[in-house]
């Protein structure tokens, strides 16, 4: 399609890459966090819960700024990771990290609700049949929370596709590296008469996210059907 320039195509590809990696990499942590919040009681649970919600509460710029301070090459975590070859600053990985963190509270909530809906009696039944905690989780709990995991993943993906403030503050806007769709859209909207170009990108954004949304619904329905009979 020639109604998008090469720079825009690059932004589209990058956005997809960032959103996918952000979603996939944060999913295990999301499940872990959701499990911890749903099933465990410990001192500091409220704190952890609050921490996870922080990116939702704070203006994205602030989150981006805090990311810069901690995960930047000079930040405590960034400096620690750098020798290991893990660099976030000005890389698409940083954009993915920002997107993942911004979407994390949404993901965790969805998965947590699913955990809370699992009947512990089924997990007990699995335990009496010889399944250790890990196996119970893998063979009973996880399949039963799959719809919630899907919902969480879709929320995370959608958020990652739309994330802008924290990303640009943390890793700025480098075409091909960190210029995601929202950054490109924002740039168009800053100049008079940029609305038409912005609209084109908005449409692309919508189409991509809708595709993910519909795919997730179809998948969720299939999972649900298997459980409900037939």
């Amino acid at each position, binding site marked *: 399609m020639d109604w998008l320039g090469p720079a825009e195509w690059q932004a589209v590809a990058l956005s997809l890459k960032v959103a996918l990696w952000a979603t996939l990499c944060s999913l295990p942590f999301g499940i872990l966090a959701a499990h911890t919040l749903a099933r465990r009681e410990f001192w500091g649970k409220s704190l952890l819960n609050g921490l996870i919600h922080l990116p939702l509460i704070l203006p994205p*710029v602030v989150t*981006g*700024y805090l990311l*810069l*301070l901690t995960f*930047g*090459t*000079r*930040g405590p975590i960034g400096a620690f990771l750098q020798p290991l070859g893990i660099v976030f*600053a*000005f890389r698409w990985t940083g954009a993915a990290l920002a997107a993942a963190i911004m979407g994390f509270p949404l993901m965790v909530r969805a998965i947590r609700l699913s955990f809370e809906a699992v009947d512990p009696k089924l997990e007990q039944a699995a335990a009496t049949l010889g399944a250790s905690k890990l196996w119970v989780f893998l063979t009973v709990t996880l399949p039963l929370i799959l719809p919630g995991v899907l919902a969480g993943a879709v929320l995370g993906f959608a958020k990652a596709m739309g994330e*802008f*403030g924290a990303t*640009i*503050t943390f*890793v*700025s*806007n*480098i075409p091909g590296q960190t210029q995601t769709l929202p*950054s490109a859209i*924002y*740039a*168009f*909207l*800053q*100049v*008079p*008469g*940029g609305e038409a170009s912005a609209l084109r990108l908005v449409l692309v954004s919508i189409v991509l996210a809708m595709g993910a949304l519909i795919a997730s619904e179809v998948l969720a329905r299939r999972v649900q059907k298997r459980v409900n009979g037939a």
Partner: protein
Amino acid sequence: ADFTVFAAASLRDALTEAATVHEASSGDHATLVFAGSSALARQIEAGAPADLFVSANTDWMDTLEQAGRIDPATRADVLGNALVLIGHGSAAPVTPDTLDLPALLGDGRLAMALVNAVPAGIYGRAALESLGQWDAVAPLVAQTDNVRAALALVATGEAPYGIVYATDAAAEPQVSVVMTFPQGSHPPITYPGAVTTDAAQPQAATAFLTWMQTPQAQAIFARHGFTAGG
């Protein structure tokens, strides 16, 4: 009378102080609304209750003038600013003649506001072009959605150098001004002001706009690092 001023966010401190002084002498209370120039311009187009608009960007003022949303007769450039190259920590100063940015940067990044969208970025790009540095530097530029974010990148050391307004550089101890771009290297940085056509308090707004151009007011702005307009 009470009137409302929509002003570029970078004017927050200076304009707040000026308005307090003005109120003491005139008795007119100004409600100050700060946001990005583009957002404010769009809102005025959509009928926002603004009496006076002070933009960081002549383009948006032009757009509003063409749309008939401001009174051209009242339009005036009230302030100016300078563009500077900053370095992290206490970087050694350079002169425009000896400036070799690629060498300075090495594999580091040059932090700027969006070079096609945000005024500071647009000015910066023009300056680098006229100094013959743009082509070499372009791939190394990290663009942010506003000048302050670019400043933050340099302040944290994430980027060794950046281009910001003189007003921003002055108050940040983590950065030093390496070079001030010559006046002629970029279009003049001006903050145009104008009274809106829908103004409920055109007299008070006009009075304030006029007062801003008096030496008393300009002294206040100068203290915040701004230069005289026009």
